[in-house]
């Protein structure tokens, strides 16, 4: 009975559609984290950057909509606003940890807290007393590109070809970032800066500039994920709506040994938890069993981590502010 339910959930296309949807959401901040940490800046602030992005996307989209603009334009500007908001959070992290040489974990936690505090505070200030942000009408969501006949292939169609626009963008970013990090000069430089900044500096690489770029990139990607969450998945902004997903992306990043593709595999496994949740609840007679089954992906991860992945080594200079004077 127990295994039957799991099996039936695992072959349902709904499960995999939701799984891929959430994997796309997680993979953006995870890639951002990989890029930032590869350059030697610890980034645990993806949670806050996503939340800022989600807030900005909904607020700007609604504001544009109130001006009476074309819905697609509203969503587009909202998404750009989300990217900028994530970038702004990343800029704070970069200034504080690269210029002010702050402890990068402290700074990351502070960003997560300030994003939660400021967005909740602004929701309270902006919206009429206690009502919260209204949910977005269907035409203000991220659009689904039209793949024509591909989308109607049974099982594969809904899973692969009925996702929102940013999902496909995320897939491109995933491939691009993997190539960038491991197949280009720039990627080599980023990794050099993260492993041995003194040597990289001697070789004429601008360590701080490169670190700035990488931290900012992580913010832009996390901000985009915020738009994905608010405009694509949820269709509303609630304070604290990221609910730990930034930390799960962090886990996926470490699980994937600081590579974009590895992180993506981690994201898929974690997203399976979201994917399985609803079908399990529908299929099992007692909805309570679903609670137990929801823990399964996390147990699987632990087993996979222990059995297959083993020890992960972060970049050698990860978390150490670069000081040209030392050494």
């Amino acid at each position, binding site marked *: 009975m127990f295994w039957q339910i799991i099996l039936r959930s695992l072959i349902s296309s709904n499960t995999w559609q939701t799984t891929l949807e959430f994997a796309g959401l997680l993979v953006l901040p995870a890639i951002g984290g990989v890029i930032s940490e590869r350059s030697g800046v610890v980034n645990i602030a993806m949670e806050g950057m996503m939340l800022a992005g989600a807030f900005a996307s909904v607020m700007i989209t609604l504001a544009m909509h109130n001006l009476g603009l074309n819905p697609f334009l509203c969503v587009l500007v909202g998404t750009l606003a989300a990217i900028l908001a994530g970038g702004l959070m990343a800029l704070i992290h970069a200034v504080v940890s690269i210029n002010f040489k702050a402890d990068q974990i*402290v700074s990351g*936690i502070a960003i997560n807290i300030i994003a939660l*505090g400021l967005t909740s505070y602004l929701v309270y200030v902006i919206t009429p007393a206690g009502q919260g942000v209204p949910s977005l009408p269907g035409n203000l969501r991220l659009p689904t590109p039209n793949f024509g006949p591909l989308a109607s292939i049974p099982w594969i169609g809904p899973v692969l070809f009925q996702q929102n626009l940013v999902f496909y963008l995320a897939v491109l970013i995933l491939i691009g970032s993997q190539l960038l990090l491991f197949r280009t000069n720039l990627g080599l430089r980023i990794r050099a800066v993260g492993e041995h900044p003194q040597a990289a500096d001697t070789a004429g690489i601008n360590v701080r500039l490169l670190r700035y770029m990488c931290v900012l990139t992580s913010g832009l990607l996390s901000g985009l994920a915020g738009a994905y969450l608010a405009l694509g998945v949820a269709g509303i902004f609630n304070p604290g709506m990221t609910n730990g997903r930034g930390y799960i992306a962090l886990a996926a990043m470490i699980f994937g040994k600081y590579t974009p593709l590895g992180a993506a595999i981690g994201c898929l496994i974690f997203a399976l938890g979201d994917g399985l949740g609803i079908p399990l609840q529908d299929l099992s007679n007692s909805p309570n069993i679903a609670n137990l089954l929801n823990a399964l992906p996390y147990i699987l991860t632990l087993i996979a981590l222990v059995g297959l992945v083993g020890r992960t080594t972060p970049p050698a200079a990860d978390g150490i502010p670069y000081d040209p004077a030392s050494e």
Partner: protein
Amino acid sequence: MAELLAPPEETSERRPPVASGLRMGLRALGASLVRPLVAVIFAFVAGAIVILITWPDKTVDPFTNVIHAYTTLFTGSYGSLYSLSNTLVEVIPLTLASLSVAISFRTGLFNIGAAGQLAAGGTVADMIGLTHQSWPGWLLVPTMIVAGTAAGAIIGGIAGFLKAWRGAHEVVTTIMLNWIVFWVSDYIINSNPFVTPFGTPETKVLPINAQLPSLAALSNQWFHTHFNTFLYTVDVSLFFVIVAVIVYWLLIARTTFGYELRVVGQNQQAAKYAGIPIKRTIFLVMIISGAFSGLAGALNLMGQPGYNLAAQAYSQLPTGFDAIAVALLGNTTTIGVVISSLFLGGLRSGSTDMQAVAHVDPNLVLVIEALLLFFITAEFIPIIRRYLPAWMKSNRGRAPVVPARPAQAMAELAGGGVDGAGEAQNEVVITDLEKEQ
């Protein structure tokens, strides 16, 4: 942009002339006080600016309102016995969870599993309490506390074991364990001997012999005072926290094990050459870390009105993550953790008053908390100093020797005298060891 990116650091550091021990001491004290004080002032000023910008009702003088908001924030946290009681209710689990995070930080482990360990402690204590209702209080209460603590310790221990012997990164394992505990706990809360018969997703209320008495009730009974036990809800868990704080201090500053864990945290190479069993230390630290959080979960369930668990409450509970902020703010020293959890717990409990009286959203407190973290960790003083006009740079100026590791400030204000001695000794050993290599 380029100027922003690469300001050359001032590296020459003029040593002050030989001064008497007392003057040196005073100067060190002053230097360590500057950072936290400046940070607190900056954070509150920045918070005030946020209120000023966003204040909707322009007819009321906004400055008056800022003052009003901050006054109610502080009277709401420490202004009366009632608000003090509410603050302590916040502070009790926060302190325990912060000790949990702090001890793992000391060992160089980033335990973000306090939330899950706390949930495990609360859930197991609840299970014991509801299934052994017939036991007398003197037996049931200690059993629940021990079981809850043990549950937290086991969850922490799993992460520690995987880290020590399998090399699995503790950030990943603790996050995974958090979610496993949250889901399993939701399952338990919704399943049969525990769930309420009314169809709501929460557990039955613990029997009275499984509850911890409030301090007000004890005082009424022993000293014939007349406190209203519905108002003053802070319970005897406070004593457990005091004991836990002392245990933490003794462990870190006064035992060989504490010394070893600090060496492991500062320099694993040194620890290895000194023959310190690194794996066993990591394992034990995670067990202790989990135990502190498990204790927090059990006490919070048994001490606070409600005396039951609701489904999905633990995954929403901010305590586990607040604890990280508190531990970092207190730089993981004993007194640093106590002061910063009193401070942040106070802000949290005062913020409800601030909302009710001054109509400022309580989330402003989060903003202040984050700004405080930024200002404490960022080495902003040398940078500000560089842009000061020449006449403001006094010749003593270089003095505020910024601690090498950030986030040290608040702790040095607080814990410098306590853990400091042990740390100095520590440094010596490590440098000696490095010479040997």
